[in-house]
């Protein structure tokens, strides 16, 4: 039974702190990982998710009661939460984990489920908007796993979201191979957002100032009673093979000869 009026929607936006997308990734010489002593910022797809949540609220001012950003990450991830707050989220939750721990999608999904269940008692979460994938592991699984664990409806590759007038359902336009597909639910639940033409806003100074005063709740994985130990073991990281230069040929005969060397034979056409 929901204690809050059914008309108001609370949105949860999970975000991840990743290596900044513009950084050139370098693999450590021993292949054990990548050089993480570089600039980090919010996963660009998560920026879009935050932006979508904030725009939803701008379009439906009375409908959205609260936008909460959550991250499961090391201490420094709180900066990423501050960015989300500066973009317009109202409050934030930081599940702090040791820097050495790299959680997996299933672990994250379970943590999010634990959190959502915890919040059911106080102020239930109605809608979760997530980025399509994280740019470090490119897994793209967390949203789908979370929907499965919660048994909630999900729309993936969302490009346009509208909340119905009676606030009881959500209409989502999804991008599919042939174009777009509209999906409508009766219950407000869960969607994950695709990288579309939505551009995240800059964090403005007044909002940055305000964000400092917005609350960040700190939790640990014990608080949520979940175990984030990875179930997968990474053996090695490798850079892709370096591109070998091409060569110039002087004429067609030489081209044919080189192709023959590579094992490609000309087939006579009649």
């Amino acid at each position, binding site marked *: 039974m929901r204690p809050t009026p059914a008309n108001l929607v609370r949105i949860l936006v999970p975000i991840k702190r990743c290596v*900044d997308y*513009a950084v050139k990734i370098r693999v450590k010489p021993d292949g054990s990982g990548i050089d993480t002593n570089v600039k980090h910022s919010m996963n*660009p797809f998560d920026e879009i998710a935050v932006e979508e949540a904030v725009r939803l609220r701008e379009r439906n001012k009375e409908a959205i009661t609260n936008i909460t950003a959550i991250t499961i990450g090391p201490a420094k991830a709180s900066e990423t939460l501050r960015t989300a707050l500066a973009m317009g989220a109202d409050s934030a939750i930081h599940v702090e984990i040791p820097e050495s721990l790299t959680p997996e999608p299933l672990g994250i999904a379970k943590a999010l489920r634990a959190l959502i269940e915890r919040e059911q008692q106080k102020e239930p979460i109605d809608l979760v908007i997530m980025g399509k994938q994280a740019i470090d592991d490119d897994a793209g699984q967390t949203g789908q796993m979370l929907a499965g664990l919660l048994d909630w409806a999900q729309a993936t590759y969302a490009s346009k979201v509208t909340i119905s007038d009676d606030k009881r359902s959500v209409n989502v336009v999804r991008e599919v191979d042939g174009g777009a597909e509209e999906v409508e639910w009766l219950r407000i639940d869960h969607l994950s957002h695709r990288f579309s033409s939505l551009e995240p806003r*800059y964090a403005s*100074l007044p909002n940055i*100032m305000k964000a400092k005063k917005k609350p960040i709740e700190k939790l640990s994985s014990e608080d949520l009673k979940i175990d984030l130990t990875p179930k997968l073991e990474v053996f090695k990281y490798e850079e892709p093979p370096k591109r070998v230069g091409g060569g110039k040929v002087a004429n067609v005969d030489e081209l044919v000869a080189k192709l023959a060397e590579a094992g490609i034979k000309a087939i006579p056409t009649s």
Partner: protein
Amino acid sequence: MQLLIPTSTRRLAPSKPFHLHRTSQCFNFGKNLILKRCYSQPKRGSYASVQPEHIHALRNILSNKTSLLTSIKGCDATVESVSESELDSFNVDWMGKYRGNSKVVLKPKSTEEVSKIVKYCYDHNLAIVPQGGNTGLVGGSVPLYDEIILNVGNMNSIRSFDEVSGIVTCDAGIILENLDNYLAEFDYTVPLDLAAKGSCQIGGNIATNAGGLRVIRYGTLRGTVLGLEVVLPDGQILDSLSTLRKNNTGFDLKQLFIGSEGSIGVITGVSLLAAPKLKAKNVAVFSLDSYDAIQRAFIKTRQHVGEILSAFEFFDQAGHRIQQVHSRNPKKIFDAGRDAAFFVLVETTGSNKDHDDQKLAALLEVLIESEIVTDGVLAQDTAQFTSLWELRETITEAAGKTGKVFKYDVSLPTSLMYSVVEATRKHLAELGLYKGEGSDGKVKSVIGFGHFGDGNIHLNVISDSYDPEVQSALEPFVYEFVAKHRGSISAEHGLGLQKAPHIGYSQLPLNVDLMHQIKSILDPKKLFNPYKFVYRPPLE
């Protein structure tokens, strides 16, 4: 490599392959109205004209067939003649404003080749224009008549680099951005940054003593260039390529060549003190409602982040609006949109992100709470750094797309910098040439932007064409304004062809005399980059 150049496409940003915009007005200097109105165009000096036998001799000096491009017909089989339009990218400047008539472009591959070429030209009385990336803005890098173009672009290797001291020695033809990318691998950076970095070459930067965006942090090239290798006008190689920080043994000859605009030698080698590349970067853009507010913001900025400050740029509303019109990516930065009177871009670069963030946060709070700024944004990731910098860096390009630009790059006392823009608007309005921003006067727009921290403003007056009426309204008005306040008529762009006649507005006669004496000693035949920089027409 030569591109076939279509006749009516626009020149894009320097880092993309460029096309040239040719208007219906012919800029062949014989008919150039601008120079005729302003002062009489210098007559062609009594230099030899290039003949096929010169081409053959030069061809024999060069190791590579492609190092010589010529449109002169009648050469032997070792030389392939091209059409004149294929030399356009060397004969025409970046703005499409100045067009030379050179028939030969040489692209030597080594200092020895340069030396032999120059000696040959000295012996045969052939005039030379040294050229690098050809991104100069005062017509200094293209010929006026048929001077031979000596382009160092093929000399682009790094000679050595010392990771401990950060001193790099390289050829003069290396593109600035490529040098920076090389140094980045070692966590160093070139102490110079400007919008043309994708095309300009370090030799040219030094020959013009380029300023750029980071003078406030690294100082000018006069401090960071440690040594130069220069080929003198008689062909001798001056090896001043020291890598020492301190060397007080006689006159510092390299300082003569820094900023000499190719008039007394061609720079072929450079040794430069690179700066450590620090990881923590922040970029913020503010909106302000008065020029006075910018000055107060500058004081606060120096107080709170002075030691990590790496750029303090400003631009006005008119400049911002033009940039947004032509931007690939027009994104509203503030809720107030484009209505603010001024904008300031602040960049900090330091070694520790947490410390820098704290210092910057303190500054932001002070600026907002004291209402010095009306609004602001802070970049959250590298994509936003780039897009915020674009707001400032692409104004020049946007101005070029809006119309033909009369550019004035001046230094003035800080409190007076913007008054040159206001005075120009008023003056043009009084003459009926300017009726407000974007309206239908001959002058569409008057914008001001620049390096606030260096006391350097770029005044851009945008018109439909390089109209002589607008030209005479602006000159000598702007120069007189600057002279009255003891400023410089060319803070960083140099004199080139455009400002050579006006040197007197910023230098006293005795100073100019000494400069001519130096020129006569080093280039007695006046073969190097004639008609420009420090130039006196020969007495009739």
